[in-house]
């Protein structure tokens, strides 16, 4: 097997420290021809390189780092159908790191590479066709924005939402930070824009059951839970809502701007399903939209890419026993307040009457090692907004208990100024306890709140009628399930980690899967929309192409060596290995040749073609014999 070794002088960079003539003599042996060139990477150098190589030969290049000119020589040798190719960084790893010993180091490097050369096999490039369809998991504001942007390019979009209505948390907002403009003026147009987009197919009350296939050609199975109301027929007149005898009604259509415009029947509360034969809503419905006999349906979709927009949920503050949420009347969270404002429900204090004194507790559970160790950054802004609304609407005395006020966007400071003008009081100190038992006799009938004003020591006991806890952001329930389905690994807080936080914030390590909205970390409305549209752009760029190129067949599985212990399947970080009747199935598009499975396989049945273990052993063997 003829081997050609090309040594580049790199214009003196290499030759000044290394005696290339001596190297040439030391390396030249039967079947190995050593050639020198002053500038191998220059056009003449490349011509020199091409002219000397015959097809079927093995080529070793000793020049600069493979990261620099590796691709040029790699493509050249692929074109010349070379049997094996390897490049050694003679300059960085021998010439430049120490005059003394440079020659021995170079000789060892080249001798090692030469003995390992026959074992290197380049993975070959392959084309993978892409299906022109996009799946978006999560119908919150981020998922919505992504769907709207993507569908403008005539790309079929499947929007899957687990709840009965779209809009996620944004649809229940009353006012928006920082300008306190009305939320529905921003959210509703997006929702209505959705209905006349013909290529967005909406699945509500449904979740992803199973994802198979490869990037560019995913097969997704959805499970749609029954709504018991036909969205096409119903035009949302609301007659059935009024007629339902159960309290709270079994039929709900709670968001102010419901999309789809049809109520949903909660089977758990509905008398019909309890076998009491009630069907008042069915009788009163003029358009015969109620269908009790509906059952869960499965849908199979073929999509090219997936955007994950599963969103966030507020930290469950009932986990903090001494705040008394869900135990004490008069203790609510910011999101309960938003819903109450949004649906114009009356707020009731601890003693049942209208609250005159309200405490807004920032960092409820946040920056606390036993609960949420990080700060979600945007809840201070939301808390301030809530405080101002409470002041204006209930003319209540509002106390803010904060640790650090973190107000994003330039308008934040103006909002703080407005809050102070309206007489909100700010106490710098985290709330230690909320109790119904008064510490001072005169506070009977009110909630006692212990919080030390760290800027002005003295008062630490406060009596209020209503407490609004402002919790931090945690990933939405069920996001671990989506993570395991798609093979995404959440960070230690449970949010999905992007491929590169700064330079690739919406991509993931998985080709063809992108993340949008609060699924990748706490975000406010504008950031969610921003990342939604960015994900849509990435998806469009990917799905526009008819196919994508990828190195494939990195792994060579020797069937008779394999003991079928299947240990490698779980070890692969990219879930590229699967058990199949014929043996181990390597998912071409997912495998990127990291080699973890090869190093884990006990019986050595897996070999990574470009970096086989035999190559390293041979290199070490040559190193041992070299001086």
């Amino acid at each position, binding site marked *: 097997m003829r081997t050609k070794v090309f040594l580049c002088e790199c214009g003196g960079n290499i030759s000044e420290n290394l005696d290339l003539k001596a190297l040439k003599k030391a390396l030249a042996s039967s079947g190995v021809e050593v050639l020198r060139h002053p500038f191998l990477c220059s056009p003449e150098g490349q011509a020199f390189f091409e002219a000397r190589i015959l097809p079927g030969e093995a080529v070793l290049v000793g020049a600069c780092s493979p990261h620099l000119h590796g691709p040029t020589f790699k493509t050249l040798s692929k074109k010349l159908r070379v049997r094996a190719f390897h490049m050694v960084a003679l300059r960085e790893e021998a010439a430049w790191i120490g005059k003394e010993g440079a020659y021995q180091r170079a000789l060892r490097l080249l001798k090692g590479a030469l003995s390992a050369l026959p074992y290197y096999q380049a993975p070959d490039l392959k084309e993978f066709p892409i299906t022109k369809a996009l799946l978006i998991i999560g119908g919150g504001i981020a998922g919505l924005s992504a769907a709207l942007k993507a569908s403008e390019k005539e790309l079929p979009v499947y929007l899957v939402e687990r709840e009965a209505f779209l809009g996620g948390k944004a649809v229940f907002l009353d006012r928006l930070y920082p300008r306190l403009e009305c939320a529905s003026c921003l959210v509703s147009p997006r929702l209505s824009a959705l209905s006349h987009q013909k290529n967005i197919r909406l699945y509500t009350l449904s979740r992803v059951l199973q994802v198979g296939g490869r990037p560019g050609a995913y097969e997704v199975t959805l499970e749609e839970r029954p709504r018991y109301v036909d969205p096409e027929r119903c035009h949302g007149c609301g007659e059935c809502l009024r007629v339902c005898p159960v309290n709270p009604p079994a039929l709900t259509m709670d968001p102010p701007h419901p999309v789809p415009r049809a109520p949903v029947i909660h089977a758990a509360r509905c008398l019909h399903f309890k076998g009491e034969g009630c069907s008042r809503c069915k009788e009163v419905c003029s358009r015969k939209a109620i269908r009790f006999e509906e059952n869960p349906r499965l849908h199979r979709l073929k999509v090219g890419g997936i955007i994950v927009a599963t969103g966030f949920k507020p930290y469950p503050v009932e986990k903090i026993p001494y705040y008394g949420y869900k135990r004490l009347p008069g203790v609510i969270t910011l999101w309960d307040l938003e819903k109450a404002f949004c649906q114009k429900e009356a707020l009731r204090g601890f003693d049942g009457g209208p609250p005159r004194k309200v405490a807004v507790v920032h960092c409820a559970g946040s920056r606390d090692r036993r609960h949420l160790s990080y700060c979600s950054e945007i809840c201070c802004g939301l808390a301030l907004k809530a405080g101002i609304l409470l002041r204006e609407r209930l003319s209540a005395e509002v106390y803010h208990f904060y640790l650090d006020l973190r107000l994003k966007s330039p308008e934040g400071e103006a909002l703080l100024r407005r809050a102070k003008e309206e007489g909100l009081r700010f106490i710098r100190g985290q709330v230690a306890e909320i109790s*119904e*038992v008064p510490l001072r006799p005169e506070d009977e009938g009110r909630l006692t709140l212990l919080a030390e004003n760290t800027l002005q020591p003295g008062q630490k006991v406060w009596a209020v009628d209503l407490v609004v806890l402002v919790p931090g952001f945690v990933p939405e329930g069920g996001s671990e399930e989506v993570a395991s389905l798609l093979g995404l690994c959440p960070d230690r807080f449970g949010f999905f980690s992007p491929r590169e936080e700064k330079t690739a914030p919406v991509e993931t390590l998985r080709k063809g899967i992108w993340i949008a909205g609060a699924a990748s970390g706490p975000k406010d409305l504008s950031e969610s929309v921003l990342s939604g549209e960015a994900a849509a752009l990435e998806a469009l760029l990917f799905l526009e192409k008819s196919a994508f190129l990828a190195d494939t067949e990195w792994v060579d599985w020797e069937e008779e060596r394999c003991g079928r212990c299947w240990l490698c399947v779980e070890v692969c970080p990219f879930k590229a290995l699967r058990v199949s009747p014929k043996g181990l199935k390597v998912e071409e598009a997912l495998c990127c040749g990291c080699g973890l499975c090869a190093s884990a396989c006990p019986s050595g049945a897996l070999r990574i073609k470009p970096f086989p273990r035999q190559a390293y052993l041979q290199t070490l063997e040559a190193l041992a014999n070299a001086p």
Partner: protein
Amino acid sequence: MKILYYPGCSSEHLARDLYLSIETLASSLGVELEVLSDWNCCGAREIEEAPEGVGLFLAARNLALAQGEELLVACSLCFHNLKRAQDLLRKEAGFRARIAELLKEEGLELSLKTPQILPLTEFLARLDLSKFRSAGFRGLPVAVYYGCFLSRPCPTDLEALEKALSAVGYPVVPTTLKSHCCGGHLPRTDSPVIKNLCQRLIFEAHQKGATGLAVACPVCKLNLEIYGGPSFPVRYFTQYLGLALGLSPSWLGLPEEE
């Protein structure tokens, strides 16, 4: 059933009635309390100001004396001092070596497997008290109070009193401040703060419909009795259990008219 018992100094003066009620209760439950021979004072709150070695030695001496699986402790302050010393000795080899030198004096040896320190509340909750309940006994609603050392830093079963009292027929009123602080040895600074603390505890029990407060620590009992407001009865939970078992009040260290 026999169990090693550490009475603690307060059993000889301040907590005389607690000690009495434990004695009678144990005998009527058929439990033989084997008093730890030659036990010494656990150091109470004073060791908090002495060097670490003093407190460790006092506790280590008791632990070295106690040969057995479990050591029953009546007062929650003794429980805290013994438990904290035991954990520290298990963790720090340096302390263990020095304490071993000190104990050598009396020929005592501190093995690694020291007994499990068992508070009185968990011990009584473990027994099935319902079969000892005197027929037809309907106790008045009571509230329970654990105080600091049974709740922190070495937490014990904070449902034990509820289990024990309801087993013998007392309806227990749930309260939120059952693990709060009664002021402890604050009175030494004769500060008014302790009034608010104790009155708050009593107020909650009273407001939620309890007719009495069952406590588990002599320090809390005295503070609550004196600062908690005159009319609300505060008694050891062993005294309540004794009454439910039909024992006579004088045996339980209670004034006659109960």
